[in-house]
Structure formats: C-alpha cells, structure tokens
C-alpha cells in the first residue's frame, strides 16, 4: 500500500457563485461554493479546485473571499485557477488560504512567469494548466497543440514539449485538459494524458470529458494520470465522490477511503 490516486472535484466560480447548473438536493444554496466545498470534503474529496471564470476585473475579489471562507473550515488542499497573471495574484490567493495556484494563459504569454513563481513561492504550489487539442490528422502520428481562449486560439506549441518545458521551469504539477473532450462526457483523451504523464516526472491531473466512473478509472489506468479532475458528474450529484472512489478501488486503484 502506498500513495493514493486522487479525485479532485472542480468548481467553476463566476462572481462568487458556482456555475454549470448545480443541482444538489440537500443543501441550502446550490450555488454557494462554500457549501459545495464542505460537501465534497465530507464525501472524501482529496483536494478541491476552484476555477474563477469571473470576466470583469472589478469582481475578482469575490474568489478571494470564497477561498478564505472555505480554508477556514475545509482542511484539505485547495487550488485556485483563473486570472493568475502576476506574482501578486499568487500571493493574494496563498494568503487567502489556497495551497496551490493554477497558471494557464499567463504561462503561454510569458513562460518565465512560471519560473519566477516557482522561485518565489516554491514548486509545490505552482500548477501549470494546459489546454490541449489534437491537431494531427487520421493516420498521422498523434500530435496535440496548446490552445488559449477557451480552446479557440491555437498557439502552435506542441503540448508534450510544453509540459516538459513547464516542468523544467519549476511547475510542481500539470493540470491537463483535453479541449476536444471537455464537456462531451465521452471520457478523457487517454492517449494525450498518457503521452504527457510519461513525458514528465511531476504529477499529472487528467481533466476534460468525464461522463461516468469508468472514465475516472481509465484516466488512471490507461492515461497513467496521478489524479483525476471532474466537475459535472459530481455537481449534478450523479455520483458522490465516495462512489467514485469505491468504483476506482474495485478496478484495482489505490484510493483514500
């Protein structure tokens, strides 16, 4: 027995409220991130990730308050992503009680930011989020590219090479999202996940496409991911975290129960 594979529920937060149509039955306020985080903690989530999708700069403080409240009563690792662009953004999140921050487009615009962040705050709190899309044609060798702007803008950067570079720059972990699969409920891009996980020595979190519990297990077993992240299957209360863990355990994966 040793290290458990992790299940990480993700909350998309807009102006301090969870979006993506959350439908919990027995909580007072279905859109309250603090209540939802509390519930995930009770169900045995290994970590919780908040993705701040607040569009307007003026309302960005709302996520800080969310993190502060959650960190006061939920004692598992918390990650915050979305809008992390300068070192001061990281400091604010860590001071609010986050343990890690996710850096996405800011790393693409200026890769040295990851290096500076890791040197300043330590690799353990720097998660580089990679949004990748398959660009190779049928019959060609697999090739994935980094996309920004929610998967709309190609960058020409090879995703596997990028992951290695981010690791060399001091990333402590990679959060890998397949933009082809995100929202489809058809499972992770396992070839992509495996290619990245085998290319880097740091942990990889698989994301994008989870529709059932077998998808989670596949991400670990076939994708070689160290952790799996999902939003909607937990939001809609289709499955609890505990059910997901029991299922993964039945498939031979070590989990924390």
């Amino acid at each position, binding site marked *: 027995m040793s*290290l*458990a594979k*992790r299940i990480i529920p993700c909350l998309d937060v807009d102006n301090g409220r969870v979006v993506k149509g959350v439908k919990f039955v027995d909580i007072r306020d279905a859109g309250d991130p603090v209540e939802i985080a509390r519930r995930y903690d009770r169900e045995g989530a290994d970590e919780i990730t908040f993705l701040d999708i607040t569009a307007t700069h003026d309302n960005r403080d709302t996520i800080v308050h969310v993190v502060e409240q959650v960190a006061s009563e939920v*004692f*598992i690792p918390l990650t915050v992503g979305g809008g992390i662009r300068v070192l001061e953004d990281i400091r604010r999140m860590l001071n609010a*009680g986050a343990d890690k921050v996710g850096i996405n487009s800011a790393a693409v615009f200026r890769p040295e930011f990851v290096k500076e962040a890791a040197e300043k705050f*330590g690799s353990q709190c720097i998660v580089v989020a990679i949004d990748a899309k398959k660009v190779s044609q049928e019959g060609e060798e697999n090739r994935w590219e980094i996309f920004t702007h929610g998967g709309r803008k190609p960058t020409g950067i090879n995703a596997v090479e990028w992951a290695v570079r981010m690791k060399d720059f001091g990333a402590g972990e990679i959060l890998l999202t397949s933009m082809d699969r995100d929202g489809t409920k058809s499972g992770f891009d396992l070839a992509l996940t495996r290619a990245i996980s085998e290319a880097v020595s*740091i*942990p990889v979190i698989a994301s994008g496409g989870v529709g059932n519990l077998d998808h989670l297990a596949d991400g670990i077993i076939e994708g070689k991911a160290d952790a799996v992240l999902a939003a909607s299957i937990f939001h809609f209360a289709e499955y609890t975290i505990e059910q997901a863990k029991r299922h993964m355990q039945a498939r031979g994966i070590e989990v*924390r129960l």
Partner: protein
Amino acid sequence: MSSVAVIDYGMGNLHSIAKALQHADSRVNVQITADAAVIRMADRVVFPGVGAIRDCMHALNESGLADVIREVAQSKPFLGICLGMQALLTDSEENDGITCLNLFPGHARRFADHMLDVDGNVLKIPHMGWNQVKQNPHPLWHNIPDHSRFYFVHSYYAAPDDPSHSAATADYPQAFTCALAKENMFAVQFHPEKSQTVGLQLLQNFLAWDGIA
C-alpha cells in the same frame, strides 16, 4: 488559556496552519509571530515551512530565529512541519548541501529519479498526495488509526542517524521516515493542516501534549 506560537520567518503562508490549530482547539490562543519574546513566552511552538531549504535556513539565520528555535525546541512542546521538519536535521542535500539546525542528527535526502511502483510505473517527484503513515508508539498518534492517510508534498525526506528517532514511516516505494520524535520535539513531513480529520486530531493531540514522549 494556553498559547501556541506559529513561527513566521517569511516562508510561505501560515493561514492554513493557524486556522487548523484554532479549529482543533477553539480555546487556544494561536499567534503567528516572528517575535522571539512571543515565541519564548508561548506554551507550545509550531515550526512550519514550505519552499527551498537554502531560503529557509538563510531566513532563520538572518533573523536570529535559528537560535530561538534551538532554545525552545529543548524546553517546550515543539512541532515541525514539512520543511520545518527537514530544517531540524543536521543538513540537507537540497541546493547543493545546506547546514541545518542539527536538533535531530541526520540528513534530508532527495528521492531517487525513476523509481518504479509495483506495476512498473515511474513514481512522480514530488511525492504528492495522500499516503499511509505507519506509526511508532507516541502520544501524538492518540485516536489516529495506524496506517491513516495524510497529505504529503515533498521531494526530500528525513534520514535520521538514530532509528529510534523515527516516529512513523511511509512507503514511496521504500519505507522512509515521515515523522521524527525526541523528548519534547515532534516533527512531520506531511501536512496535518491539510490532512482533514486525522490531521486535525494530530494537532489537537499536540495542543494537549505535555511534551513527554
């Protein structure tokens, strides 16, 4: 009212550990401080830390807190966490070799690259996530089932010279020491403040501990 000082030497965010201590015992007075006098006055001391050991030791030596730690670590219940555990050793391999506080004879060593698990998969570094902790008898494990999982994130681990100082081990893939104990000192590699119920229990045990092992 009993008090606990959380030593603030500029290495990372202490919000979590302070909140967790307060949660573990609402009656305790938790102070995040860099003030030697406050640390000396406190009933108990917590020595946290994240980041690189060179920066950690530099900050401790520059501020004079290294001497304060040496002093209080021998006189009252003292808990080192993560880098705060590694700093208690004689030295660390990190940053090409750094001299540490030498309160526990031994060394912080890096996990080897390309270690394999039983299925032949490469083990990632840092060792990150929830791993099982195999206890050696100590009052701070009170009410915590043996082999409970705690949250780890680290690339270096403690190798104490005296095996009797090991208060617990975890496997990655070989057994390594993940808790140290000697007299009134206890130190853990994992993060009790991020280890949910069992972590809070350990902190509660620490806040109730008289420092006698």
